[in-house]
């Protein structure tokens, strides 16, 4: 029954091997990056927190859905900004096409983007999550006056899905003098790869195993958009990407030193404090189910939400 699949996977494996070979070896890649204006820096100084008594803030959000196919589904959202001194700003919400106002927004996005409503729902969901995260961050900046704000995820995501909120956040942070960093655990960018190896490749292809543990790659500063530093903060060969606003590229080295310090060397390379907030806000299947079973009456849940496939015997 699996013979065909095996053949497929063999071919796939050959393709991946060829893709790897096209990149060339590590030394050559590093050389090309240097020529493109990048700088490899070995982290591991004292790693002191560069912002004195202004606290650290970490921002993350989580969403989890429950239900069957469109529109019988509900998404719950939870976003939080937490300061190292213990303050928390939490934003929560829900989204379901069963609610008229939400359905309206989905329909608008579907029309504007020219996609089916179920795809539009996913877009609205991402938008909603980004909005809540940025709102929490903005409120936290106002409330606690942080020196450094860590986001779980890149800035482009916020700029794309919640442009107005993101603008406002940037204004507020700038006014408060807070440096923002978006930590991306799985870089989906392609800018560096395009510059170094050409089209068709992504930064991940290039960077896996390229850096030594504790090494960071600072590209040439940029004027607009986002300044992204790559770093292997733990022993894991997959580096993380850290987005800075262009005006903060000067502070990036000191910030990266500190992030290196607060990342456990045995971990996947995410600063510990960010991981803690991630764990705190995470809505998992168990919790969502528990919440819905407790707070949505059984008949309504069965009628509108429980996917029929959940009733399978096997």
């Amino acid at each position, binding site marked *: 029954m699996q013979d065909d699949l095996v053949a497929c996977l063999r071919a796939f494996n050959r393709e991946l091997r060829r893709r790897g070979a096209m990149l060339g070896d590590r030394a050559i890649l590093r050389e090309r990056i240097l020529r493109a204006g990048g700088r490899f820096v070995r982290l591991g100084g004292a790693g002191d927190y560069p912002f004195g008594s202004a606290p650290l803030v970490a921002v993350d959000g989580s969403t989890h859905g429950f239900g069957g196919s469109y529109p019988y589904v509900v998404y719950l959202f939870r976003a939080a900004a937490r300061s190292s001194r*213990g303050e928390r700003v939490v934003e929560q919400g829900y989204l379901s096409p069963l609610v008229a106002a939400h359905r309206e927004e989905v329909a608008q996005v579907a029309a504007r983007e020219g996609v089916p409503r179920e795809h539009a729902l996913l877009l609205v969901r991402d938008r909603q999550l980004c909005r809540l995260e940025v709102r929490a961050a903005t409120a936290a900046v106002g409330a606690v006056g942080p020196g450094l704000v860590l986001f779980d995820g890149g800035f482009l995501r916020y700029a794309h899905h919640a442009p107005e909120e993101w603008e406002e956040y940037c204004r507020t942070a700038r006014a408060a003098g807070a440096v923002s960093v978006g930590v991306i655990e799985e870089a989906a960018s392609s800018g560096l790869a395009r510059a170094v190896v050409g089209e068709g490749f992504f930064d991940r292809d290039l960077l896996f195993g390229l850096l030594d543990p504790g090494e960071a790659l600072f590209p040439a500063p940029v004027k607009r958009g986002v300044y992204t530093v790559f770093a292997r903060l733990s022993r894991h060969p997959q580096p993380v990407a850290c987005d800075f606003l262009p005006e903060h590229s000067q502070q990036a080295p000191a910030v990266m030193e500190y992030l290196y310090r607060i990342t456990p060397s045995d971990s996947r390379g995410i600063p510990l404090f960010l991981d803690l907030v991630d764990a705190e806000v995470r809505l998992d299947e168990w919790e969502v189910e528990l919440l819905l079973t407790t707070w949505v009456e059984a008949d309504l849940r069965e009628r509108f939400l429980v996917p029929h496939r959940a009733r399978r015997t096997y």
Partner: protein
Amino acid sequence: MQVVGTTTQQEVWVASRDRKFVINELLLIEDPERENPVGEVVSTSSLNRYLPLAGEKTPLVDEGVLAGLRAVGYRIEEEEVHLARVRLLQEAGTPVTVGARVRRPAFHEVARYLLPARYRDGLVLGVIRGTGHLTSELPGDLREVLWLYDPERGLYPQDGVPFIFDHHQMHQYPHIGIFGGSGSGKSFGLRVLLEELMERRIPAVVLDPHLEMDFSEPFPGLPAEFVRDYRDRFTVFTVGVDVGIDFTELTSRELAGLLDAVYPLTEAMTNAVETLHRKRDSLVSFGSNLRDLIRAMEEEKTIQAVAEDKVADPVERERIKRYRDLLARYKDRVGGVSTLNAISWRLNALEKEGVFTAGTAVLEEALHRRQLVVVRGPVRLLGVYAAYLFRRLYARRREFQDARAKGQEAPWFPPFVLATDEAHHFAPRGEREVPARGIIREIAQEGRKYGVFLILATQRPALLDDTVTAQLNTKIIFRTVRALDIAAIEQETDLVREELARLPYLASGNAFVSSALVGRTVPVRIRAARTASPHVINPFDELAQRAGEADRRLLEVIAPLLPLGAFNLDLHLPAIQGKLGTPVSFQELLDRLRALAREGHLRVEPTPFGEQFLPGR
């Protein structure tokens, strides 16, 4: 504090970020629909989800990382979450609301769960654990009513709500069991109970095989206002000295039991005793029957050969007639001469111990005076004596009660309590015949009707007679380690899994009280006794102390005679012996001087005549 997770009508989980839960503390759940139930913490735990057990998926976090976060004010240690399993004191009608707020109750909110209705008059046994925070809210008559003791802390003042046992309710729920291994505080518990009986002048009898039931000495260090003089509240009797057995009241079985206590009887002997013994036999009548029968059997041939009318001496004739009678009546029913001889020497032994010289009158008078009666004697004898004594006292009380029930006049005999440690010796489970078990069973089952109650302490509840155990309506359970005993406790009490699991780890003096009176298991710390057990000095300390005394004495004696040595020891030996008061040889003395020198009490210098001992520095 907040209710979390899945709840039931009986149990909830409570979580807190800021405070650790205290085992057995009471918590009030603010759930108005269920009338704000109160529960008791039955297990506690604390966890930090960010500091898990290190494993493949959860590596240990480097110290540097934590230091880096501490620098910005974040302490991962503070992520600790505290959890408690809370069992409701009274079942709620429906499951408790998840998310309900939880707080520590005020005293007036929980008083009804903690105190019996007639608390002013009950037995004050200790404090209820987990109620420490309520101490300051207690009304005056519940404050400073006891002291506590812990081998490490010593004596310390009352810390919590007193545990008061309403003994009046024993009328409905009679008898108390005290279970616990050695060092668990069981004997202390029994002492405290007996003190409370004396305090309220409740007549009681306690068997004292270990000679520890003396209440004359106050507990060392106890503040004066808590010291009580119980010297006129108890009397010690020793079997065979002040109290004994009225032989005429013995049943055949009791007599056999008594003889067996001297040295075990064979079946033939038991049979012989039961054959020979008649109701209302006196020691003299039974003893002479026994001795004469032995003589008769020994001289049987001669006796049977003599023609009665040929004997001139009337006394001798009478004797032969009596012997023939005895032979006719008993010969075939009592076995051989050796069997009877064996019974005879046992009887003599009992007689010599004085068991039959005194009766129980003085003891009964003490009960009339509402005293605690302490009965001492060798363990084996005590078992038999207890059978006799308990039966007799119980009968006295019954006679009075029965007569009164029939509307007849009868001399008053007070209700009383029978107490003993090592109860499994007196009423063991199993086939083996034990003299006291029958009467203990009877009192266990019927004593309530007559106002006769048992307090049975044992370290082996598993070995205690089932019928008796089942009737112990209140059980005070101290540390127990043996699995067999824990299993017995599990069967006989309402202790739940968590409590049973804690039994092997209970600190000395801590106990669970499982009682039909209270309707739930109460964790208790038994109070400090007001009096001390007489033999508390450690035998090994005693040895060291004695040795020290002997050395000091010798030093005193020889001090004026120094310097001493082998050269002049002969000369002084008689004087030294005289002053020490014991003969001591030359060599022995020399050895002891050397030993004192080794310990630095004397100094040694060599001389041409051998070593010389000088005063130590």
